[in-house]
C-alpha cells in the first residue's frame, strides 16, 4: 500500500524542493512507494484538498522553509493536524536558516528597506503592502508578516529534522526510506545526517589550534591539506553536524554551519564563539581585541543559519 506524502514550501528559497527533485532517478523509487498528494511547487493541489483530508492521513510531510508569516503558520498547523510524521526539511525549518537573519532587524526596517529604500525602487509616498485591501468591492488579502522569524518546532510539534541548506538529496531519500521501513530513531532527532561534526568527515590534517590571525577567503590561497581554521579562516566545521559530504570544505571554502549543531548544544553560534575564543593566541586584552577585530561581523558569521534557534532568538529591539 503506497504511503501518502506531502511537501510544503514555507518561508524559504525553494532550494529544498529542488533538492527533492535532485534525487534524479531515485524519484521513481519515491513515486513507486509513495503518492505525493500535496506539493505546491510541483503539483496542483490546493489547501482545501488538504483541509478535506482526514487527520493524520499523510504518512509523512516534509515542511521546508521557516515560519515567517501567518500563512506559513496556518499551513504548518494544518499539515501537523493531517500528518502522522512531520519532518522539518532544511536549515530554515530546522534553525531559521538565512531567512532567520531577519531577526537582527525590526519588521518596519525590513519593509522600508525593501519597498522604499532599495536602490531600484521609486516609491516617494512610501506605500507598503497591506494585509487587507478592497478594490472595486473585491477583498484582497496578504498574510501577516511576522516581526520575528520562527523555526518550525517553535510553532508545531516536529517529529524529525533533515538539516542542510540545501539538504543533500540522497539524505532526503534515506529519510523517506527510513520512514516507510518504519525504523526511525527516537522522536525529535535529526535524521539524514551524522552524529559527529564535520571535522570527523573532513580529510584535512588537524593539529593543535592556536589562532594568531583571521583571514577572509579572498585574502588567502588555502593549502588543500591543512585544516582551514588553522589557516586563519573562520570555519564552523567543528560545531556543525556532518552529513553534507564537506561540499564547501572540499572546494577550499570554510564551512558556514548550515547542518546545525549536535545534540545537547543549545546555541550553535555562541558555542563556536566559545571554542574559537578559547584558542586565540594572545593573552593581553588589547592584543585579543585587535585579533577579534579581524573578523568583519562575528555574530552574523557564527549565526548565519541559526539565529532563530539561538538562546536569545533575536535582537532585542
Amino acid at each position: 500500500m503506497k504511503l501518502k506524502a506531502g511537501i510544503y514550501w514555507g518561508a524559504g528559497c525553494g532550494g529544498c524542493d529542488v533538492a527533492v527533485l535532485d534525487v534524479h532517478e531515485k524519484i521513481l523509487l519515491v513515486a513507486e512507494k509513495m503518492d505525493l498528494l500535496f506539493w505546491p511547487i510541483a503539483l496542483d493541489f490546493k489547501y482545501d484538498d488538504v483541509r478535506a483530508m482526514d487527520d493524520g492521513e499523510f504518512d509523512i510531510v516534509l515542511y521546508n522553509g521557516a515560519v515567517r508569516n501567518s500563512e506559513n503558520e496556518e499551513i504548518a498547523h494544518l499539515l501537523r493536524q493531517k500528518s502522522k510524521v512531520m519532518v522539518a526539511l532544511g536549515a530554515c525549518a530546522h534553525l531559521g536558516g538565512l531567512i532567520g537573519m531577519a531577526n537582527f532587524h525590526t519588521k518596519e526596517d525590513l519593509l522600508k528597506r525593501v519597498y522604499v529604500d532599495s536602490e531600484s525602487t521609486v516609491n516617494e509616498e512610501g506605500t507598503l503592502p497591506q494585509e487587507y485591501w478592497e478594490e472595486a468591492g473585491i477583498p484582497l488579502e496578504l498574510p501577516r508578516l511576522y516581526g520575528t522569524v520562527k523555526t518550525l518546532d517553535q510553532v508545531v510539534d516536529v517529529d524529525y529534522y533533515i538539516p542542510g541548506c540545501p539538504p543533500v538529496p540522497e539524505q532526503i531519500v534515506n529519510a523517506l526510506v527510513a520512514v516507510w521501513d518504519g525504523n526511525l530513531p527516537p522522536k525529535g532527532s535529526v535524521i539524514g545526517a551524522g552524529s559527529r561534526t564535520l571535522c570527523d568527515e573532513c580529510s584535512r590534517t588537524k593539529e593543535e589550534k592556536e589562532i594568531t590571525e583571521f583571514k577572509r577567503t579572498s585574502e588567502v590561497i588555502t593549502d588543500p591539506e591543512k585544516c582551514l581554521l588553522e589557516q586563519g579562516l573562520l570555519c564552523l566545521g567543528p560545531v556543525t553536524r556532518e552529513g553534507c559530504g564537506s561540499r564547501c570544505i572540499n572546494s577550499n571554502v570554510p564551512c558556514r554551519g548550515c547542518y546545525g549543531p549536535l545534540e545537547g548544544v543549545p546555541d550553535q553560534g555562541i558555542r563556536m564563539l566559545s571554542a574559537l575564543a578559547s584558542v586565540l593566541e594572545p593573552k593581553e586584552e588589547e592584543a585579543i581585541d585587535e585579533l577579534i577585530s579581524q573578523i568583519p561581523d562575528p555574530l552574523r558569521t557564527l549565526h548565519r543559519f541559526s539565529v532563530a534557534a539561538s538562546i536569545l532568538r533575536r535582537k532585542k529591539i
Partner: protein
Amino acid sequence: MSFEPKIVGFLCNWCSYTGADLAGTARIKYSPNIRSIRVMCSGRIEPTFIMKALYEGADGVLIAGCHPGDCHYQEGNYKALRRYRMLKKVLPDYGIDPGRIRLEWVAASEGEKFANVVDDFTEEIRNLGPLGIKEGLDEMMKDDVIPHHASGGEKGGDDNEA
C-alpha cells in the same frame, strides 16, 4: 520604588568564590542583587551560560576569576578573558549593551574588592535599566498570529493562540 536589577555571578572556586566568602567572614555589606553560581575555574564559564542567564531574566552577568598568573589551573582565566572579549564584541548585535556583562579578577584575599565590584556593578546595571529579554520577546511576538480574515473570514486569528 527604584528598579532592582538581578545579577547572576559566575565565581571560580579557588579565588573569587573564596574572596566572596571572605567578604562574608569580614561582614562587609554589599547589595543583595547578585546570585552566584560556583564553578571550579573561570575557564569553565561558557558564553552559553551567560546568554542563558540573560535570556532567563538577568539584567547583568558578573564573571570573576583569579588574577592572571594566579589561576589554580594555570591558564583557565586567560580563556575566560578571551571568551569575554569576544562576547563583549558581539553583544551589541543582539541589541544588548556590552556593559551588562563584566569580568573581574578577584583574589582569594580580596573580600573588600568583591563587595565593591558587586555594589558598583549593581549601580551600573541600575542605570542601564531592566533587560527583560524574555518579556521583550513575548511582547515583540504578541501580534505574530494568523489574522482573522485570512482563512474564510469568520474563523479569526484570536482563537488559535497556539
